[in-house]
């Protein structure tokens, strides 16, 4: 990773402004409406790293799918740079909790999917190599997904997103399935990637510490139907440390908000 930083030059993409206005969303479960999001209002500045924190199953992931354009909200509007989100677009890329690589494609072919789908290959082959280098997988370019470890798969999934130079990266518990050591490494790597590439990042997590180590701002959600209960600014320089007293204080505040008074 450190070596990669010197060689690869990622052109700074235009980061996006995201506006979520009065968004509510319902699913229908066995015919009965199931409200998951309740009047969400959120403004994200270009280049900001925002963590969405809340109890599991509260609807954070649904909010990401709405921003990605995979689903339409039942009520309200979502705007990027003032334009309403209609359908998925490669400028806003979602990285799922499970890496979900295509098992029939090699790592390189998986990373290249976005460029291939938009007809940018083979002209933009260099971007694929750059993305592989960025996540340190150039040696595994020809490997098949089932030959990779969990951490490597998730890195490949990250490269598959980053190769498109997204202006808005949506991360849905991207590190949720990794072992704790890989997870710590990847947290640092993700922050460095974000600092270097300058995209806007929106990350769902249910790990308070992870949110505080990585994000500029932490949005705390209530249980389903999700409502924003707090927005906390984390004004600490990177790289951050777990035992930073300012972070400890914020951690306590968030635990109180989530209802774990004794933590």
């Amino acid at each position: 990773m450190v070596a990669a930083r010197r060689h690869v030059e990622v052109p700074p993409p235009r980061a996006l402004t995201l506006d979520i206005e009065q968004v509510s969303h319902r699913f229908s479960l066995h015919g009965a409406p199931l409200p998951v999001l309740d009047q969400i209002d959120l403004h994200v500045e270009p280049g900001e790293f925002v963590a969405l924190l809340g109890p599991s199953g509260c609807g954070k992931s649904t909010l990401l799918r709405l921003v990605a354009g995979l689903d339409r909200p039942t009520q309200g509007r979502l705007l990027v740079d003032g334009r309403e989100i209609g359908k998925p677009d490669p400028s806003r890329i979602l990285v799922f909790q499970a890496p979900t690589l295509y098992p029939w494609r090699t790592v390189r072919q998986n990373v290249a999917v976005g460029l291939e789908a938009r007809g940018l290959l083979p002209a933009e082959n260099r971007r694929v190599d750059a993305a592989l280098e960025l996540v340190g997988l150039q040696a595994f370019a020809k490997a098949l997904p089932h030959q990779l470890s969990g951490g490597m798969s998730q890195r490949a999934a990250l490269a598959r997103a980053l190769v498109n130079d997204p202006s808005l990266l949506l991360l849905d518990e991207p590190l949720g399935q990794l072992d704790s050591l890989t997870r710590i490494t990847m947290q640092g790597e993700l922050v460095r990637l974000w600092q270097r590439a300058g995209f806007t990042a929106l990350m769902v997590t249910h790990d308070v510490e992870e949110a505080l180590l990585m994000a500029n701002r932490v949005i705390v959600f209530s249980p389903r139907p999700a409502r924003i209960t707090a927005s906390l600014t984390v004004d600490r320089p990177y790289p951050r440390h777990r035992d930073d007293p300012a972070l400890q204080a914020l951690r306590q505040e968030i635990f109180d908000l989530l209802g774990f008074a004794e933590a």
Partner: protein
Amino acid sequence: MSSLADASLVHRPRVRADDRTGWGAGLAGLLWLGTASLTVLWPNADDWAYTDGLAAAEGVLGGILLLGTWVPRFSARLRHLAPWLGLLAIVFAAWEVATAKLELLPRPFFAPPQAFVEVYLDDWPPLGGSVLHSLWLLTTGYLIGALGGFITGVAIGWSRVVGYWVHPVLRLVGPLPATAWLPLAFFVFPSSWSASTFLIALATGFPVTVLTWSGIAGVNSAYYDIARTLGANERFLVLKVAIPAALPHVFVGLFMGLGASFSVLVVAEMLGVKSGLGWYLQWAQGWAAYANMYAALLLMALMCSGLITLLFRIRDRALAWQKGLLRW
């Protein structure tokens, strides 16, 4: 047919009859030499042509096995085959004794090994022609059926409209054995060849359609979500996501279709087409030429097994990315 489908799914541990000393091949060689001398030294109960020729071939095989034990590269392969080769020598000897030597088995129905030699050497033009005819008919019908079934399956799995209109027809007509169409097909089509091609295509098409459809329907929806966020259009989703993901299912359908196409081929050739191995079988049976019948059956078994092997090879290439493939 169903056993073929199972074979492609069920993992079977590989049984390896191994002996490190290498005497197994030598023993098999000795057994074949024994069978050869038994064939040539023990007089036949009746006249059978090619007895000496058969004995010579058995002797040569035995000699090669015996000598091969000392050739390192050869003996490594032989070691694995030796138990089977040894057993075959014993089977040939017992068969020879029960038929040509003692005539323990009723005469016209059971032919001795040398009768096979006679058929293959004297009757090879019609037999070879029959194999080519069968292969041509089978290949044409199978390819049409497989391609049609695949396209239909993808269309049903992908498009709600196509599904609405095709599904009921498929449910009604698909399970009907293709051979049930035989009388109608021979009446409607201009030639028995085109009728048989149609029936083979029909028999192949149904399993391929259903399994392709189920493969497409079962694709992990996250695969689509990811492709869509990365800018994929409908065409890309079908060709580069849905079809590759469904391919393991498609191959199960192709195997089932191949099995079904074999039985339709034989029935069609027995009942209408005036060529091919099915026709030859029927013809030989009509003339009480049982040796010819067995010889044709053996050829048919080799042909079908060869085609299954070919399909396995294609699948191994196409699905090389899968873990734990069954090796045929």
